[in-house]
């Protein structure tokens, strides 16, 4: 039977002959059948992918490769959590312990001190502690850090790059489809083996 303009009628002998016409002619029934087949195959592929992804995600976790990260700020805004699972961390072995720390102080800071107007982090998440002249230690208060990467940019641009972003696994939900990974412009967000869930920065100099 054919469905034509909503009227169901039996195929005429002439139309039955047409059904045997060359394969490059397609009718609505054949097209519909193709669509159903295609949909079934796509569903099957999706199901397989989902099962594979779930199995894979049980052995891997999301992490940021600090050598590829450009600190764009997407980590702060794209995480499904209200407070992002991404935080700034500090590789102390790389830090210069500078008085004029460009990850801590505004580029045109009036004073090299802890005054809020001089601090780069809008949330005051970096703490500065005097060690000895002229060295200071910088620590991150993760409860205040939103993972915006502003300090990371400042540290990279002028300093040694000892501040960098990492996914904190006590917070991360390890979603199959991570919203931050989808929004990451540099491809720094990737899955790593669960046995090595962090990517520490390496010391590049003395």
């Amino acid at each position, binding site marked *: 039977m054919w469905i034509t303009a909503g009227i169901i009628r039996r195929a005429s002998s002439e139309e039955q002959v047409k059904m045997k016409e060359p394969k*490059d*002619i*397609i*009718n609505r029934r054949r097209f519909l059948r193709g669509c159903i087949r295609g949909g079934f195959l796509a569903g099957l592929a999706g199901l397989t992918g989902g099962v594979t992804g779930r199995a894979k995600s049980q052995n891997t976790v999301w992490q940021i490769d600090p*050598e590829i990260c450009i600190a764009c700020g997407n980590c702060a*805004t794209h995480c499904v959590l209200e407070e992002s699972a991404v935080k700034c961390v500090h590789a102390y072995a790389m830090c210069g312990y500078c008085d*004029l720390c460009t990850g801590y102080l505004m580029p*045109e800071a009036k004073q090299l001190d802890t005054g809020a107007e001089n601090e780069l982090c809008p949330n005051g998440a970096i703490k500065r502690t005097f060690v000895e002249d002229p060295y200071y230690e910088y620590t991150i208060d993760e409860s205040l850090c939103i993972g915006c990467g502003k300090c990371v940019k400042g540290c990279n641009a002028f*300093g040694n790059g000892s501040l960098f972003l990492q996914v904190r696994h006590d917070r991360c939900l390890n979603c199959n489809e991570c919203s931050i990974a989808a929004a990451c412009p*540099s491809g720094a967000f990737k899955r790593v083996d669960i046995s090595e869930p962090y990517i520490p920065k390496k010391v590049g100099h003395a």
Partner: protein
Amino acid sequence: MKKNFGTLNVRILSFGVIAVALVTAVVALLRLDYIGEKGSGLGKEFIYDIESLTKIDPELLIYQESGGAISTGFTQSSAIAAQKNSPGRFYVAGDSAVKIFSEQGEMLDRINLETPPGCLAVGNDGLIYVGLKEHVEIFNGQSNRLARWPGLGAQAVLTSIAVYKENVFVADAGNRVVVRYDKAGNIVNYIGTKDEEKGIQGFVVPSPYFDLAVAGDGLLRVVNPGRHRIEAYTFNGDLEFWWGKASAHIEGFCGCCNPVNFAILDDDSFITCEKGLKRVKLYDADGVFVGVVAGPEQLTGAGQARICDLPAQCRAGGFDVAVNTEGRVLVLDTIENTVRVFNRIKTR
């Protein structure tokens, strides 16, 4: 003839589907944000913006680039040197070699090294002094190695060499000290170690940039990068004076630790080179700011003033500088691994 309105041509249908897929793919590619330019949606207080600091007042630009950039052929260049007794040529260290170029950019000779070099200098006698990670090697004009001095220890990171009469000064960023050698490779004394009685606070070297040179007045000039100044020492290690201040503005040295490198002109004025905000500037013999050789826009090319995106780019951003006999400034771009030549065009 009866028409069949319920059929479609497979070829036309396939062509249509492929065309739509192609257009979609192209649009998707064009809309990709590879470097995060579209922004994260964060407020401006969360954005690190130093673009305004990259702008240089055109009145301050007293040099102009001449010719095109000269490719060194290195994948990782580290230092540049020129020598008054060898006019018309300059030396570049990088990868595991030193290359000698004519000023037109033609490579004249090459010295192969066992490990990557950190610094180099050329003596009046034409000998080439190369600082590798923790020791010095000396080569003659025929690329033969004449000497290999003992290393300064695993902690040493040699970043600069200067040869003056019978003295060779080596800056060791790892140990934050200047080592004075005689020409036979014997250590004569150390310069810059913390000494409260002498009023020496010690060198602050947060990153592996620690340059030195001997000025025409016979005093050794050493950058104290963490204190943003250039200090003058006698060869015996007495601190005479210093100049320089920390500031993101053009008169000062920006960031945590600058200048990274410098060179001294015949009139004892200084060409300084900063990282972060890449700026090459001229100071007179007393350290008074005179003008700009090149700012971020001139050094990064095509009117751009990007600081750096990837950490590796940031780390490679410490350009080196040398001056030749005609007073031209040679800037080694350690990111593009090219040499750019700047001529003075006006006085201030």
